[in-house]
Structure formats: structure tokens, C-alpha cells
């Protein structure tokens, strides 16, 4: 499969997360674990600093978690001008359930009324868009209280 994001590659940071973006572009949310010691490793890196393995395994993960932190951007900053028309927009940092506490960023869509640190969210995967600089992306939505599983009485 040819991936759209690879034509518009962003080269900053560590850059070991190609499989994350490939997964998203296929519609899958995948996060890495070290193949040697099983430790979740996010952001992805080229070597496990704990056991020394050079191999990672990418696990399909349910895009659910809680907001670790968030910001609402009120200014169209230079290098993310593609989102100027969406100002103000919220970007959330979400701690993923069952992935070693991996915190994954994404724009928040939908109702923002109950936005706060600790709020539950679910993710939806978008195909590559201009707003996301030609990359696929995950967007977060506050979990509707009515969707919550009632606790056993």
C-alpha cells in the first residue's frame, strides 16, 4: 500500500512512528510495545532503552482514554495555518487505556461542554486531510455520559 502521508513527510522529532501513521491511514489505531520485554513504548523509538531490543510490535488498540491535558488555541500559528479557519480549536492529550499510559494527541471534535482533565474520550480516525498536513489523524470526542456503562448495583 502506498501511504499518502509519506509524500508529505514531517521530519522533526524522533521519527520512529511511521507504523503509527500507516496504521491510522489503514483505519487502525496501533501503538508499539517492545518485542523483547513487552514494555509499551510511546512515543515509538528505535531501540528499547530498558532491554536493548531493536524490534517493536505494533498492537491494535481501542482508541479510548482520558484527557491528560488540553489546550484551546485562539491564534492561527504559522506552522499550523491549515487550521486557521477552525480557531479556536481544542487539542487534547489523551492517556490511552491499557497501553502503558501512552499519551496520544488529537484534536477534540463535538461538544466541549464537559471538557476537563480526566474526562473520558473516544477516538475516531480521519483519513489524510489538509488540516492535518496530509497525515491521517485521530480526533477525540468526549464520551457521552449516556454511553457510559452503568456500574453494577
Amino acid at each position, binding site marked *: 500500500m502506498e501511504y499518502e502521508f509519506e509524500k508529505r513527510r514531517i521530519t522533526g*522529532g524522533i521519527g520512529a512512528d511511521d507504523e503509527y501513521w500507516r496504521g491510522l491511514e489503514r483505519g487502525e489505531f496501533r501503538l508499539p510495545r517492545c518485542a523483547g520485554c513487552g514494555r509499551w513504548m510511546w512515543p515509538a523509538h528505535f531501540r528499547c532503552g530498558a532491554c536493548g531490543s531493536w524490534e517493536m510490535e505494533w498492537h491494535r488498540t481501542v482508541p479510548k482514554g482520558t484527557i491528560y*491535558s488540553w489546550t484551546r488555541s485562539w491564534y492561527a500559528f504559522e506552522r499550523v495555518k491549515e487550521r486557521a479557519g477552525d480557531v479556536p480549536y481544542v487539542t487534547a492529550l489523551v492517556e490511552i487505556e491499557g497501553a502503558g499510559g501512552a*499519551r496520544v494527541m488529537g484534536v477534540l471534535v463535538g461538544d466541549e461542554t464537559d471538557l476537563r482533565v480526566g474526562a473520558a474520550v473516544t477516538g475516531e480516525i480521519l483519513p489524510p486531510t489538509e488540516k492535518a*498536513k496530509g497525515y491521517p489523524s485521530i480526533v477525540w470526542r468526549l464520551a457521552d455520559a449516556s454511553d457510559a456503562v452503568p456500574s453494577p448495583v
Partner: protein
Amino acid sequence: MSRLRGATAIVGIGQTPYYKRGTSPDPELKLALRAIVAAAEDAGIDPRDIDGFISYASERNDAQKLMPALGTKEVRFASLAWIHGGGIPGALSIAASAIVAGQAETVVVYRAMAEASHQRLRVAVAQNDTAAQYLVNGLESPAQILALRSQRLLQAHGVPRSTMKAMAQAAYHHARNNPRAYGRNTVLDDETYENARLISEPYNLFDCSRENDAAVAVIVTSAERAKDLAQKPAYILSAPMGTLAGGGAVEENIRPFSCAGQLGVARRLWAESGYGPKDVDVAQVYQNMTGMGVGSLIDHGFCTVDTAGEFITFDNLIAPSGRLPVNTSGGDLAEGFVHGMGLVTEAVRQLRGTSCNQVPGARLSLMTGGPGDTMTSTALFGTAETL
């Protein structure tokens, strides 16, 4: 004790005026030269004798460009501290290390910015090295990225927003007495602060540092030589740089969470210097954003997340008699911003007794490097009696 403790001193300081960003009458390289020559004159040394050149982050005016105009006799040492504003005290540490190791004798540490010669500061400092995770999700500026840190500090750790306002108001208050300060005419009362336009929540306009065209330089030399020069030396007691395990370029996955990421360097600072938070007379706190300055004070042990609201108040933060006067020149918010380098000269002025907002008898002067950076540093300077 560290071998660097008190082995070197800042003996000269120099800086150009702060210009509105993009309006400097001089190009960046000329600003750098002006600041370096001014620092040499302040120290009473010949600029030709400077044999070491150190800066940090995205500085482009390196020794090879400066030496012809300075008449440099020989460049014996030149280096750049990696990272961003986190590297300022780290640059001083490199200078001290080079001097103690005999690699150089007279070292200048400097930073110059003129946006017309380069590009917008907040873009330049990123060095085209921002991870896709940020850019894909609408985050690129330090204001946005650090907003995530401060939001967590406020919402998960319960630090009151009043701390951010106090940091901003103390800076603007001090700037009123500083003729160099670019923000000296701004009166930051509660209403002005509360009604300011939002930039990236929880930050508003007054929570964010300025961007100016200017250059700032300091001369570092051995403690032995410092005694014979023109100015009262500001001894470098400690200037550690680093990052703890669980930090680094981890795209907001720092563990354990610390707003400023300065727990490690602060611990080393106190251990190497032999002093603690209670001993500090005055602090110049790097504030890319107010919430990060709050985080620096917490990480340095001046208060905890639980006591921050009581400690970080306007009255406590102002000279001459606050418990910990901070950013006595106006700092990054209200004096001007050359990537934080102006904090070093103010930290030195406090020990000389020449600040516009002097803390009487200041003996220990703290200068913290860029908080929230993936690597950071901090420095404690002292007078001769603190050695």
C-alpha cells in the same frame, strides 16, 4: 562539591537596546558584536583577548563570523549548548568547564536575534524539528505545547491561576522602573490581565514572553583573574544542565510529570552549590509563559503544588522586600526577550548592586533556564562571601 563551584565568574555584561521584533537598525551579527564589545568594555578587557565563544539553541552568529570584527587573536574554544531556552545556564556551565580545563581563558556567552536577518523567533527556535504528533494536531508554538503542561498543573494538581497572574504582574511592575524595558509603559492591573485576549488556554497575551530584536553577552573568566578586573565578580556556584530518565523528546509523555522538567537540575544545583531555596535572595526565572515560571519555582523547591498559591503572590515576588523577588528587570515578559539571555545580565546586576529594582545586599542570585524544555539548566551566582 563540584570542581566548578566558584571557579569562574561573570565579569562583564553587555547588551543592545531591545527593539520591536523585526525593526532592529542593525543586522543580527552586528547586534552580537555590539553586545560582546560592550561586555568586554564593562569587564575592562580587550575584545581581542576573548578566546572562547559559547551560545545555545538556534544561535547562528558563531565564532567564525565574529572573529574578524573582534580582532580575535585566537579562538581556542567554541561550542553551542543544545536545545532551546533550556540551554542558557548550560552555556555558562560549558564556559566554566572550558576555563577550568584550561581550554580557554576569557569566554563570551551570548545570544543575538534580529528577525529581519533570520525569521520569526518562535519559528526559528523550533529549528524545524517539531514532531509530527504536534503539527498534525494543530500544535506548533511553545505557547501551545507548554499550555498542555500548565493546564495539567492547574486542573490536575490544583495550582491556582492566581500564581500565573502574580508572575505576570510582578514582571510588569518591575519593568516600570527599568528604562531598558520594552514593556515599561504597560500597567498590568487585574482588569487588564483578566480581559487580555487568549492565546492558547490557559495562557493569555500577558502570560506569554515577548519577542525582541537585541543581543546580550556576558564574559566569563577564572575566579583568580576575576579579582583583578573592573567589576565585582558574580561567581558561578553551579550551573547544571540535563534531563532525568523519563524525560527528553517524549512528546508530552514525561514521567513523572513535572511542569517545568527541572527537578533534576534543581537537585544538582542545591547539592553543588551547598545552598538551598531559603538562601536565595533574588531570582530571574525564565518565563516563556507564566505557568512555566510557576513550575520552575515548584521544581526548585521554593514551594510545592500545594503551597504555590500562598507563596506565589505579587507581594512575595516584588523587590525590594518580597520573600523572593523575581524578574526584577521585568524579565522575558516585560523587559524584553532575547531567548532569555537578558536574565543573566540582571542576575549579575543584582550581585553588583546595580539593578533598577535592587534587592538590598543580595548575595545569592538564581537564574533558571527555559522550563518545559526537553533538556534544561539552571544557575546560581554568588558574591565573594558566598564562596
